[in-house]
């Protein structure tokens, strides 16, 4: 009985299955035919195709979409498409692997600090500065050290789009109460570690809790800021490195002191660090300018300025977003030219980018424009671009790199109070030794 029933059923189903299989094959054939077994570029379209990859989500994502919309409106001759990937290692891996395969996107956005690790010359193709100059971009319209960051072996590989430094946020109400604001409502300037600690103590009086919020899971930027304020160098050689022990210890001591006095949280991640300022547990925050959109959204009182002067100047750790040309085996001159024109357009129109994202435009005419000069609090930290301290130029440094995670691990003990500056230095040097002896893959 059962068997008969099922035979009957499968007979009934057979034609339908045949049909499905046939249509599957048909569709496949059609798709293969249309696309020529590769990405579907607009075959019947005489517009120039341009593919852009970026890692921008959240606030940055909204801004880049807005800019791209406008770019497309102004460039009907370009078939432009942008793709957003998850930020972090997956994005860099995708760019690297597609470049290794010789079929990458036309333009990608990287962190300037990752340029060295992306094997310029092999995974990245050089940007022709003469063509770029045709579109109005040369060393005269960018800050020299920002422009120069993009060079490798005398060729331009990364065109800076912005600078994104770590800045000093503050809650005006708390700081007012602590008597730390001047007549313009700006935070008073401090000089040296002691004055800064006094400022923190004054804030703590008011909050009754913490003073300075930090992302303790990622405190490399704070360390690098203090280290570079002392003019100290971190140099890497073939299989050795040189660190300024004293300067490093000075920087570690500041973190140690802040923890000892309960001025900074013992454990916070990126969102947590912002929340601590938002909810009034702390009055100050040292964090990247990328938090500007979230403070704007929260509607709570906040302002920001340049990094505090702890060791005689206001240098601060910074990175930049830059445009690159991932390697293509068969680079089309027309598309490459369109790519460079796109980069130039983005730079010239970067007001939208900085307004929303808080980044400082690389393109100086925008910084000098009246519109930018009217942006609050952006204009108060615009000077940070001049004080920008980029990452060490080695393959393991840069945004979400191994150097940063090793540093974070070493500093973690200082933040939780489980180690002292000497121990932290020892751990940090041990991990640097491991990194420097690792054979460079680039």
């Amino acid at each position, binding site marked *: 009985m059962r068997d008969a029933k*099922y035979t009957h059923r499968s007979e009934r189903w057979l034609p339908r299955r045949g049909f499905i299989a046939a249509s599957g094959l048909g569709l496949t054939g059609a798709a293969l035919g249309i696309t020529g077994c590769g990405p579907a570029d607009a075959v019947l379209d005489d517009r120039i195709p341009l593919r852009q990859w970026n890692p921008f989500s959240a606030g940055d994502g909204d801004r880049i979409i807005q800019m791209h919309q406008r770019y497309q409106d102004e460039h009907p001759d370009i078939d432009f498409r942008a*793709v957003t990937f998850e930020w972090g290692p997956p994005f860099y891996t995708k*760019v690297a692997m597609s470049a290794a395969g010789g079929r990458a996107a036309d333009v990608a956005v990287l962190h300037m600090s990752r340029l060295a690790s992306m094997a310029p010359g092999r995974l990245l193709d050089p940007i022709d500065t003469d063509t770029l100059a045709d579109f109005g971009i040369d060393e005269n319209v960018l800050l020299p050290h920002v422009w120069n960051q993009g060079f490798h072996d005398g060729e331009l590989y990364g065109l800076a789009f912005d600078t994104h430094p770590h800045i000093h946020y503050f809650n005006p109400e708390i700081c007012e109460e602590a008597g730390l604001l001047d007549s313009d409502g700006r935070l008073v300037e401090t000089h040296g570690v002691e004055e800064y600690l006094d400022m923190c103590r004054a804030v703590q009086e008011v909050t009754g809790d913490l003073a300075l919020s930090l992302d303790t899971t990622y405190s490399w930027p704070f360390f690098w800021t203090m280290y570079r304020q002392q003019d100290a160098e971190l140099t890497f050689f073939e299989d050795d490195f040189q660190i300024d022990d004293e300067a490093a210890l000075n920087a570690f001591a500041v973190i140690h002191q802040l923890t000892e006095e309960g001025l900074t949280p013992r454990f916070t991640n990126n969102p947590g660090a912002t929340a601590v300022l938002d909810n009034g547990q702390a009055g100050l925050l040292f964090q990247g300018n990328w938090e500007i959109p979230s403070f704007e959204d929260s509607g709570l009182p906040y302002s920001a300025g340049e990094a505090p002067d702890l060791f005689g100047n206001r240098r601060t750790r910074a990175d930049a977003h830059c445009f690159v040309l991932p390697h293509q085996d068969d680079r089309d001159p027309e598309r490459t030219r369109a790519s460079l024109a796109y980069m130039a357009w983005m730079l010239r129109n970067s007001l939208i980018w900085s307004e929303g994202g808080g980044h400082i435009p690389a393109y100086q005419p925008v910084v000098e424009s009246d519109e930018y000069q009217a942006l609050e609090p952006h204009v108060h930290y615009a000077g940070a671009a001049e004080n920008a301290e980029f990452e060490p130029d080695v393959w393991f440094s840069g945004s979400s790199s191994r150097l940063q995670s090793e540093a974070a691990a070493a500093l973690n003990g200082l933040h939780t109070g489980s180690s002292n500056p000497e121990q932290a230095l020892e751990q940090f040097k041990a991990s640097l030794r491991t990194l420097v002896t690792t054979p460079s893959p680039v």
Partner: protein
Amino acid sequence: MATTSTPPRTTHAQSGRRHGPAPRPRTRLGRVNPGITILYVVAIAAALVWLVPLLWAIATSIKPEAETTLMPLRWLTASPTVEHYVAVIQRGELLRWILNSLVVSTLVTVLTLVLCVLAAYGFSKCEFPGRGWAFALVIGGILIPPQVVVVPQFVLMTQLNLVNTYWGVALPQVVMPMFVLIFKRFFDAIPRDYEDAARMDGAGHIRILLNVVLPLSRPIMAAVGIFAFIGAWNNFLWPLIVIQDPDVMTVPVGLATVSSDHGLQYAPSMAAAVIGALPLLIVFLLFQRQIVTGVAGAGIKG
């Protein structure tokens, strides 16, 4: 192996009075037995538990986004909406990935069947010097897990200039020594008389393969084909490595790596998950019986 062995050891002390799932319902219709009721309750409960994740995904996908994180959670929303489905479809990427998956899986399935059937026929029905060695070598390949050779395979694809192409995704997936083994085993079991009769009529190998062997092999081809198709559709590691261009991505890779511009929103992402799951669920529902009997027929059951 012998299926009639192992008679039940009947010890009188424990005859029949144990609880647990009771005799099969097919004994007699209409005879209500508490054991059967328990059996069915357990079965239905297990099935429902198994369906919870899928149902929850569907329930989430038709909620307005604001309701998705409202505590306490509710299964049903007062204002169901298809807006998330519309949004996902309008973005277009997912449909593109489904098409890509269809292309890749079809390529893999067709190529796998052709290559494996030919090879199995050669090993099963042809005599030639070195056959034993060649067969052992092919079967030895079962021991090399495809996942561990992705590094050199990627290098090979860069050299063949196939990174970011359909062929690049499909080709390494068609090498399935396992399927050769399954087909050969099946062909071995086809009685010799059939071929001999055909040969009397002057048929060569090609005609024997087409007119004798293949018609007899339909069920097994269906089973292997379905598994090759599902395998290719759901393969993740290799497509993740060989494709970076979203225009060529397959469903799993696209869903996993391309970020939706709106940050993390649960309702739209569940809508995308449901749409991403649909094509194979439909295939499965249509071919359910073939899958089960196919596994039996393929001799995988051992």
